[in-house]
């Protein structure tokens, strides 16, 4: 018995010592992040220098003239009362090459233009777990520029650029070779491409408003398996262009006011196995331009007041265009040949003049959406000036009865008598 007690006592200091050691280690280590405060007149770069991995920097309201603020360790930078960081046209503002960085609440401005360097308000390399939230990024060349990064969240930022000469504008949100990202509720104005993705996979883009950009609102290439929900693309110089990608989902978006030749509500170039549903495509010169795209589902969209609803080239194959509403478009569909390998079904066409004797809600005679005159206009653009004249209406009507120039098989066998009931805004 005594022997046993002494045995216990002998061990006690050792256990205690180890516990104490652990505690000390904890205090010095990651589990107790320090808050550093930076006020106007102090340097953010120096504060970052002093901070250790995992610290939080609170940048107080004020005006900071700094650029090339390099972050190479996990840090949280929070602007309190929206501090302004002005790069004075000298280059990048935040340069990040570290995991777990959080940037929130800043106003970042004036990166200046460079033909050598993609100056950006926030430029990120080889990072993971990055969050960029609630920043105002004003008058920058590029806005948020990421390359080779994963697990990114870009939310609630406002980006505006004012440069009008297109070669001097950069992209708003630019992702190159990224994986797993969320781009949500940002507002991008006046950049070259509002949102630009190249080799960016597994990206969800939702609730962004992208307008008045100098080139495309949304531009992506080789960015597979991405989803786009509830975005608004409006009045961008060249509309939206997406290319060389498969497995894209686009739902509940609004594409509007892309006006001009070579400007498209949505340009689908080599897009395959993708889904476009419940989108509103309004007031564009060309609603959707499809080239080399295969096996896509274009269902339940609204095409309203476009010059051309869909330009469906013969290079497309196996697409289904179903249940859409075509209302008030000058021309519903046009194509460039007689080959038809895409299917049209159950769409509502406001120009349909058939009847429904059996009362099943579908017209009894097929609708041919390609007007003769649209093929004439395709060849001779200035002929559009005669559109809606009595002469042209007669020609068009005759062609619809006996198709001779337009492809005979391009027809909707079950045109709806009434518009499809589509809910464009489910939350």
């Amino acid at each position: 018995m005594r022997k046993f007690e002494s045995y216990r006592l002998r061990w006690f200091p050792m256990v205690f010592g180890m516990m104490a050691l652990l505690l000390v280690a904890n205090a010095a280590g990651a589990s107790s992040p320090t808050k550093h405060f930076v006020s106007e007149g102090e340097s953010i770069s120096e504060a970052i220098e002093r901070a250790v991995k995992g610290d939080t920097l609170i940048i107080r309201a004020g005006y900071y003239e700094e650029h090339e603020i390099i972050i190479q360790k996990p840090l949280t930078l929070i602007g309190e009362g929206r501090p302004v960081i002005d790069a004075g046209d000298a280059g990048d503002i935040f340069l990040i090459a570290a995991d777990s960085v959080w940037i929130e609440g800043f106003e970042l401005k004036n990166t200046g233009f460079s033909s050598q360097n993609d100056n950006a308000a926030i430029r990120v390399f080889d990072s993971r777990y990055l969050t960029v939230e609630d920043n105002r990024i004003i008058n920058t060349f590029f806005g948020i520029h990421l390359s080779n990064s994963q697990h990114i969240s870009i939310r609630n930022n406002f980006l505006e650029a004012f440069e009008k000469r297109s070669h001097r504008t950069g992209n708003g949100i630019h992702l190159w070779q990224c994986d797993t990202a969320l781009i949500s509720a940002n507002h991008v104005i006046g950049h070259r491409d509002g949102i630009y993705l190249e080799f960016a996979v597994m990206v969800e883009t939702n609730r962004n408003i992208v307008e008045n950009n100098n080139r495309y609102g949304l531009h992506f290439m080789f960015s597979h398996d991405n989803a786009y929900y509830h975005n608004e693309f409006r009045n961008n110089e060249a509309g939206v262009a997406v290319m060389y990608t498969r497995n894209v989902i686009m739902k509940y978006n609004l594409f509007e006011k892309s006006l001009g030749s070579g400007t498209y509500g949505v340009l689908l170039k080599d897009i395959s196995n993708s889904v476009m549903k419940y989108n509103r495509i309004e007031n564009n010169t060309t609603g959707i331009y499809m080239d080399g795209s295969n096996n896509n589902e274009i269902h339940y969209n609204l095409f309203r007041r476009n010059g051309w609803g869909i330009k469906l080239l013969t290079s497309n194959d196996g697409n289904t265009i179903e249940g859409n509403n075509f209302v008030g478009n000058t021309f519903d569909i046009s194509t460039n040949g007689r080959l038809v390998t895409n299917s049209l079904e159950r769409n509502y066409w406001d120009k349909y003049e058939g009847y429904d004797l059996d009362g099943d809600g579908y017209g009894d005679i097929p609708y041919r959406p390609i007007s003769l005159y649209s093929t004439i206009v395709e060849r001779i653009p200035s002929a559009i000036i005669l559109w809606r004249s009595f002469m042209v209406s007669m020609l068009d009507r005759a062609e619809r009865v006996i198709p001779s120039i337009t492809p005979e098989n391009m027809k909707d066998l079950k045109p709806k008598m009434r518009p499809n009931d589509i809910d464009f805004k489910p939350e």
Partner: protein
Amino acid sequence: MLKLLKYSLYNILRTRFTLLYFGFLLLATFAIYSLDHDLARVSLSLLNVVLLVVPLICIVFATVHFYNSYEFIELMLAQPVNRTTVFMSQILAVGISLSLAFMGGIGIPMLIYGGEASMIYLLFVGVMLSLVFTGLAYLASVMTRDKAKAIGITLLFWVFFSLIYDGLVLFMIYVFYDYPLENATLAMVMLNPVDLARVIMLMQLDVSALMGFTGAFFQNFFGSIRGTLISSGVLLLWILIPVYFALRVFKRKDL
């Protein structure tokens, strides 16, 4: 002048033709509204009425009315009134009554069912076309003494402007499509009041398609309010010039 205008209007009202015209437009517009629920389609159907029916009725009615009130005109000219006053009161009376009938016939259903911006243009264009074709009718009427011949000329005007002219332009476009045709076609459109009215409406209904043009001049023309202003200006000339010539002929004419 006002007194004469009053009597002329009274004469027109007595024939009841404008009332009939008003009733017809009213019925047609109500029918169009009840058939189509989409306002864009309503404007389109109404556009066809405006481009085809309105010119025809205006030109025929104005011609017939001129000959029917020939004696009245002769009587008035026997009084110490100058010819310009007599002629202008006649033409104004016809123009006003036709425009009012049109505005009422199309406008009342619009007020009831509601409309959109393009319909205001439709009303404007309709009134302008009524006046243009009234002017043309009077020009044709003062040129000849024979009522049948005058009606023939006016019908020719109508067929030419609504149908043949567009055919010719289309033919031109087809033949010369290798050449830059934008400005030429625009100029040709200016030479036809029906086309002008149509283009003003195109700029409302199909602006998205019109913006597909590559020509900078076209972009400029269609992309701003300027195109509408220029077209309306030329349409106004289409009212003033025929009336001016008709008046000139009438002043020198041996009745």
